[in-house]
């Protein structure tokens, strides 16, 4: 984008603020650039286009990159992923842990100036639950949501839910939306939230323009706005950053990141994320129903080599799900590469053929698979790599048509999210058919355990069983990578990949 166009965009933004109505970005009205004390419009190049901007209906990470700046939740995770007040300033739980009472911040407004009250919270949660929207599973234990007055929300539960705060604030998929905005259908392209920015324009295929929300309840954002463009190719995104066509991107070519990080300008930072990547073996198929075979595979893997090939070293190897930085981390590393042990566990079952399913949607799985194939070849397992596009991959996963697959889980915070749906016999994400009654019991107990220390112990015991059984064979926690030009300050690279521009400033 040329400087001339930036001025034009600034004018269009100012006009939009004045009108507070959807005006096309083509408005060529000569209005000044906005408040000179604050600063500028940040140009962010993200790797793809949101499918839509309704936070309750989208599942695309690209949508949440934008929506993180537009919407609020009752609570939100801080840098250490502890839940902190956001729209709710305080909360208390009843003695039986079945009633949670939240007190909302006074005077909160949506970006269009209308008040955000407890009724909006009830409406938002009921919408997710009643219409069975994507985040409905986060409300599995919620019996009732009520608004006795404008600043009080009471949530009644069917069972104690110690991770309720993580469910209500972990991501913007449970954001508080405005009923009028939903009813008009505008929420898909012109969502109205209460966050630090509001959506001023959305040109399909091209860009999304945010402007500072003057009605924001917190400290006003320093930027006048943020313009998101969608650049799929990381080499092109890097060129945008270098050529001053973009100020920030999280889509950098991984092989160049270590060099860029050392070079300085643009600034490139990497932070260990809360995501993990794993290998799952189909336990409904022989011989992968035998824990010894799964353990043999776990012993044969060279995790360092896998992480190096898949992420160019931008990852930390791991043998349990939850990364080191989390207070829920469980330090347990039984599988150090040992080919003799692997062979003896296989007990003459060599000559196996394993079909490993990977997807082009996540190129790192394709690369990692090659190292895994080489590793397993050394213990007499011939790996055939099956590369699919994501739609077909998901289809096959759902039907159970695989020996093994590679994938990751992104954005989990509470241990329940790391373990229950994946490893409980009845878990909705248990595509690999893991069954262990003891694990089931522990996961059920921990789910409703309100004593934090006891809860940690229960998850540690479950984690040990899951790792010993090689339900998942954990590989690594990847880094979050972001780069920005030297004009940008205040960027916080977060372990949960939330992109928050409210504290970011642009030197001019």
């Amino acid at each position, binding site marked *: *984008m*040329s400087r*001339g*166009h930036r001025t*034009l965009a600034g004018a269009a933004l100012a006009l939009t603020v004045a009108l507070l109505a959807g005006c096309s*970005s*083509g408005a*060529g009205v000569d209005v000044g650039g906005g408040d000179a004390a604050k600063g500028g419009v940040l140009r962010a190049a993200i790797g793809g*286009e949101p*499918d*839509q901007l*309704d936070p309750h*209906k989208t*599942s*695309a990470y690209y949508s949440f990159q934008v929506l993180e700046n537009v919407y609020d939740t009752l609570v939100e995770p801080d840098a250490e992923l502890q839940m902190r007040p956001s729209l709710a300033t305080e909360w208390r739980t009843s003695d039986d842990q079945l009633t949670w009472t939240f007190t909302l911040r006074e005077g909160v407004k949506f970006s269009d100036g209308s008040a955000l009250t407890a009724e909006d919270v009830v409406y938002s949660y009921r919408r997710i639950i009643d*219409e*069975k*929207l*994507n985040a*409905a*599973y986060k409300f599995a234990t919620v019996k009732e949501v009520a608004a006795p007055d404008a600043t009080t929300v009471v949530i009644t539960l069917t069972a104690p839910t110690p991770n309720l705060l993580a469910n209500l604030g972990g991501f913007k998929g449970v954001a508080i939306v405005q009923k009028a905005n939903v009813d008009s*259908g505008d929420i*898909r*392209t012109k969502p109205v939230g209460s966050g630090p920015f509001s959506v001023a324009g959305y*040109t*399909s*295929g*091209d860009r999304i323009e945010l402007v500072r929300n003057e009605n924001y309840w917190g400290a006003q954002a320093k930027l006048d706005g943020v313009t998101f*463009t*969608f*650049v*799929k*190719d990381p*080499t*092109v995104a890097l*060129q*945008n950053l*270098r*050529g001053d*066509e973009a100020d920030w991107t999280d889509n950098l070519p991984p092989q160049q990141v270590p060099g860029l990080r050392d070079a300085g300008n643009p600034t490139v930072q990497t932070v260990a994320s809360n995501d993990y990547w794993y290998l799952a073996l189909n336990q409904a198929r022989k011989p992968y129903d035998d824990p010894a075979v799964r353990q043999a595979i776990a012993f044969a893997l060279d995790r360092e080599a896998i992480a190096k090939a898949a992420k160019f070293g931008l990852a930390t190897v791991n043998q349990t799900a939850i990364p080191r930085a989390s207070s829920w981390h469980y330090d347990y590393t039984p599988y150090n590469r040992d080919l003799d042990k692997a062979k003896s566990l296989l007990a003459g079952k060599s000559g196996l053929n394993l079909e490993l399913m990977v997807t082009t*949607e996540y190129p790192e799985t394709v690369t990692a698979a090659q190292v895994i194939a080489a590793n397993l070849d050394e213990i007499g397992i011939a790996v055939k790599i099956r590369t699919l*596009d*994501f*739609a*077909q991959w*998901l*289809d*096959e996963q*759902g039907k159970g048509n695989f020996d093994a697959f590679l*994938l990751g*889980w992104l954005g989990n915070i509470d241990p329940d999210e790391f373990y229950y749906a994946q490893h409980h016999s009845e878990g*909705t*994400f248990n595509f690999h058919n893991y069954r262990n009654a003891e694990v089931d019991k522990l996961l059920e107990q921990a789910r409703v355990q309100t004593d934090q220390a006891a809860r940690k112990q229960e998850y540690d015991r479950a984690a040990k069983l899951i790792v010993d059984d090689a339900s998942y064979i954990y590989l690594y926690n990847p880094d979050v990578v972001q780069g920005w030009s030297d004009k940008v300050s205040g960027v916080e690279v977060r372990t949960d990949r939330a992109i928050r521009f409210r504290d970011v400033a642009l030197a001019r």
Partner: protein
Amino acid sequence: MRRFILRRLLQSAVALLGVTLVVFLLLQMVPGDPVRVALGTRFDPETYEALRSRAGLDQPAVVQYFSYLGNALTGDLGVSFRSGEPVTDIVLARLPATLSLAFTALLLALLIAFPLGVISGVRSGSPIDHAVRIFSQFGVSVPDFWMGIMGILLFAGVLGWLPPSGYVALSEDPAGWLAHVILPAATVGLVTASILTRFIRSSVLEVLSQDYVRTAEAKGLRPRVVVLRHVLRNALIPVVTVVAVQLASLLGGVIVIEVLFAWPGIGRLTFDAVQARDYPVLQGAVLLVAGLFLLVNLLVDLLYARLDPRISVR
């Protein structure tokens, strides 16, 4: 003339109907489920069923097709599975970007291909002919995305003359549009130019061997006049067809190039729709492209009559 156009329009309608059926059948056969993609790995059976029935995917395929067709006849192409927006709006919004890229690329291609093709045909066997043939071989065989990336690295990276990617509407900021369109149009145009150059060269060669050219030369006309008046005019007819086919394929959106340059056209829309198995959008995009294709062909047939009095439209 009017009857000819009417008949062609009727034929086009039948062809479009065929297109909807073929696309629908193909989509039924392609593995992958739009609702699974929409949910990603966070698959919840209840949400899945709710979404499927909301999108009408729980209906039998025959019912789905005829309800789609019924709505399409009234101009309603349905709504996108991904965004819920009307398909007609989505597809039409992408048209200006694709049109402006296609015509710029074609213009560049013609500017390159015409002189090169004619010179290389007339001076067949000369060093300049060899050079032109190497150029067109290069353009045809080198993948366009590679040329695109090299272009970005050189002109946006090393030299810093052009923006690496992005789009500005022509109606909004013509200078900005021009700066952004050059690289993608040159990349696509180079490939198209290579194809056209070869056709023009062989067409010129063929005409040169005709008796009337020999006669013209025997009459003592200067070579310049022979080429301009006799050769070019006759060589043009097959070339027009190839140019039209090239234009039609450019109008279909240059998927790889649009994705690479973040160009918000039909090609990129098609790419995203295939990835997400967004059937309504894919149908809409293919219908629009098929419609443009038929339109271009109709115009070419009319143009033939202009170029060659021996052809008449009835």
